[in-house]
């Protein structure tokens, strides 16, 4: 008995000891360097397709400039980053931040700022002269209390209406609709040919459609005002927008809930649907993955009634408080804001650089058009992609939208939107 007891104690002691040892080992690994290089852990949700290719291109450029830093990819898969954000939240709670992490530029970063989890990096903007090369209308959208907390790598546009040229020809629609009324007419024509008017996917893509309709009905200023303190969600123009949106949903496919955005865009590519409203990442999916010819197989325009407005969203990188390799992280942020970095990343990712001195020759037909628009359009932020509302607010709007899809009650939906704004607007 006594032997076995001693044996047990020895065994448990060993187990504890080895656990401590491995824990120490991890620490050494984290804090130290490999082969004289500093390890830089970069957290993102870029794990596939053009995103990954873009990241690799930028990393290659980065490592060429910074021979002393080894890039460690801490990416977590999942579109729009919902899973990555959950992992990130727990790492930040535990005060174990990556050296730098990806976040949607704008209001979505507010939570990190409030929790004092990311640093003010205005000094980088001054040092690198970024205030001159980023568009004037963009900077206010990145600034909170006169401080800037992230470096935008790319710019995507949310308010884009895609169409299948052949389906439109058959339905007798000569040009993409400019207004919401024209849009409804065109959808009617497509539907009468036995096709899906507007292809759509799961809940968030319906929210994406809603934000473009809100922008169309309220205009750039009215739309932006909704997300400021005291924004009027109860007004008749919001009601009108919700009614139109509800009408548009009547032209969509019945199996929306089981389709991802790719599935919905593929319906357009396959000639099953006439239109699709999706951000401009759809372009690299259509031309890259599905091998469709831009301007012949498919075309694009600003979403109805939103011409002259660029509803943007942007992936940006931050400097977490307590980053283990702060200097390396700053080197990465400089890369993110540099011309060579952005021109390496964006043609592959299928977005345009945030800087206005990009080299247009590197970009395809859609992106060339987008570059032109970016320079002359009025810029507003996207709701579904974190530019204008905090995560908590966006989630609450998503909940209200989901409940609306069950009840189809516009009045109740509008009330819920108003309540969410009252609770979350800052």
């Amino acid at each position: 008995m006594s032997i076995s007891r001693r044996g047990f104690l020895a065994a448990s002691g060993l187990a504890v000891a080895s656990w401590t040892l491995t824990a120490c080992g991890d620490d050494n690994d984290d804090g130290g360097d490999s082969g004289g290089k500093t390890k830089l852990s970069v957290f993102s949700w870029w794990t596939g397709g053009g995103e990954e290719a873009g990241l690799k291109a930028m990393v290659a450029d980065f490592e060429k400039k910074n021979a002393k830093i080894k890039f460690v990819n801490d990416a977590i898969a999942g579109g729009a980053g919902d899973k990555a954000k959950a992992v990130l939240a727990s790492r930040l709670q535990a005060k174990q931040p990556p050296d730098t992490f990806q976040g949607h530029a704008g209001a979505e970063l507010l939570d990190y700022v409030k929790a004092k989890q990311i640093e003010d990096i205005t000094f980088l903007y001054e040092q690198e002269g970024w205030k001159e090369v980023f568009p004037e209308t963009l900077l206010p959208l990145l600034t909170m209390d006169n401080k800037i907390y992230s470096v935008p790598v790319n710019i995507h546009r949310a308010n884009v209406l895609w169409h299948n040229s052949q389906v439109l020809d058959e339905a007798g629609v000569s040009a993409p609709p400019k207004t919401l009324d024209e849009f409804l007419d065109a959808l009617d024509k497509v539907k009468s040919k036995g096709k899906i008017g507007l292809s759509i996917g799961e809940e968030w893509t319906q929210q994406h459609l809603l934000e473009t309709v809100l922008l169309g009905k309220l205009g750039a200023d009215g739309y932006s005002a909704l997300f400021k303190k005291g924004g009027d969600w109860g007004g008749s123009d919001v009601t009108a927008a919700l009614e139109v949106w509800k009408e548009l949903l009547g032209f969509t496919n019945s199996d929306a809930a089981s389709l991802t955005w790719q599935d919905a865009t593929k319906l357009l590519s396959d000639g099953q649907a006439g239109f699709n409203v999706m951000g401009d990442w759809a372009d690299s999916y259509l031309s890259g993955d599905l091998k469709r010819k831009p301007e012949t197989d498919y075309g694009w325009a600003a979403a109805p009634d939103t011409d002259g407005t660029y509803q943007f969203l942007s992936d940006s990188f931050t400097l977490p408080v307590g980053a283990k390799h702060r200097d390396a992280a700053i080197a990465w942020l400089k890369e993110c804001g540099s011309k060579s970095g952005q021109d390496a990343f964006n043609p592959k990712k299928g977005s345009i650089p945030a800087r206005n001195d990009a080299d247009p020759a590197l970009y395809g037909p859609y992106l060339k058009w987008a570059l032109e628009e970016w320079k002359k359009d009025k810029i507003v932020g996207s709701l579904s992609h974190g530019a204008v509302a905090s995560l908590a607010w966006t989630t609450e709007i998503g909940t209200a939208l989901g409940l609306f899809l069950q009840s189809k009650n516009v009045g109740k939906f509008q009330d819920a939107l108003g309540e969410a704004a009252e609770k979350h607007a800052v």
Partner: protein
Amino acid sequence: MKRVTSTWLPGLLLISPSLIAVGIFVYGMIGWNIKVSLSNWHTVVEDNSYAGFGTYRDLMDDERFTAAWENLLTFTVVFIVGTMVMGLIMALLLEKGVRAEGFFRSVYLFPMAISFIASGIVWRWLMNPAPGERASGLNVLFSKVGLDSLQNPWWQDQKWGMAAMAMPAIWQMSGYVMALFLAGFRGIPDELREAARMDGATEGQIYRHVIFPQLRPVALSALIIVGHISLKVFDLIVAVAGQQIIADVPAVYMWQSVFEAQDYAKGAAIATCLLLFVAVLVVPYLVYTFRQEKR
């Protein structure tokens, strides 16, 4: 005195590691979770000040919360009835002595070895509601065999969607219930059946009056196990439907409250409600088995 110590001390030492671990990681965490649910921690900034039951009261008025419980109720009823009935039927068939029993037993049990995430993704394809020529999965199968009327939107049906959602779970867990029942059948001595036969009982009567009453503890265990799996369901729903209101359940709502909306108090309150419901199911069972063992 010394002898007394030597009888309980080794035992206590032996279980103390797990006692401490369970104390911290189960009961400590439950306590902490309840504390968070009663706090003002509604944003990303930690705030442990006491707020009372306001978060719970808000949840009661929350349309999404109610809808999630309704969904869960539909799911649970269909899932429990489905697994119990299927499990019992399969156990009965095997118990009656089919050829290659071992083979069938394994086949029925295999689905349990797959995670809900993996089977959920496959069932997402099978239960594809796309209409007409785009149809796939079970709907295509139905149209191929001429049963077009059986085609339906599966989990995207507003009213009965959650019943369809229970199908993958039934498929996965009924083998387990079968194993429990089969063990129960095997535990009943043959003498009892023989005695009943001697008394002139028909086969049906033997099952009704002799076998099934003896299976009651097994059935109860199965019910509790399946029931608490059902209340906690999360992975299957997320794999099939993602996080959409149409297939919302409390566990998914909890996840979104904490990790997306960053409302820690609300997430903790939902977690506490879930725990209470599981306790309502499990505690009477524990009391019952405790009494049985004492007897």
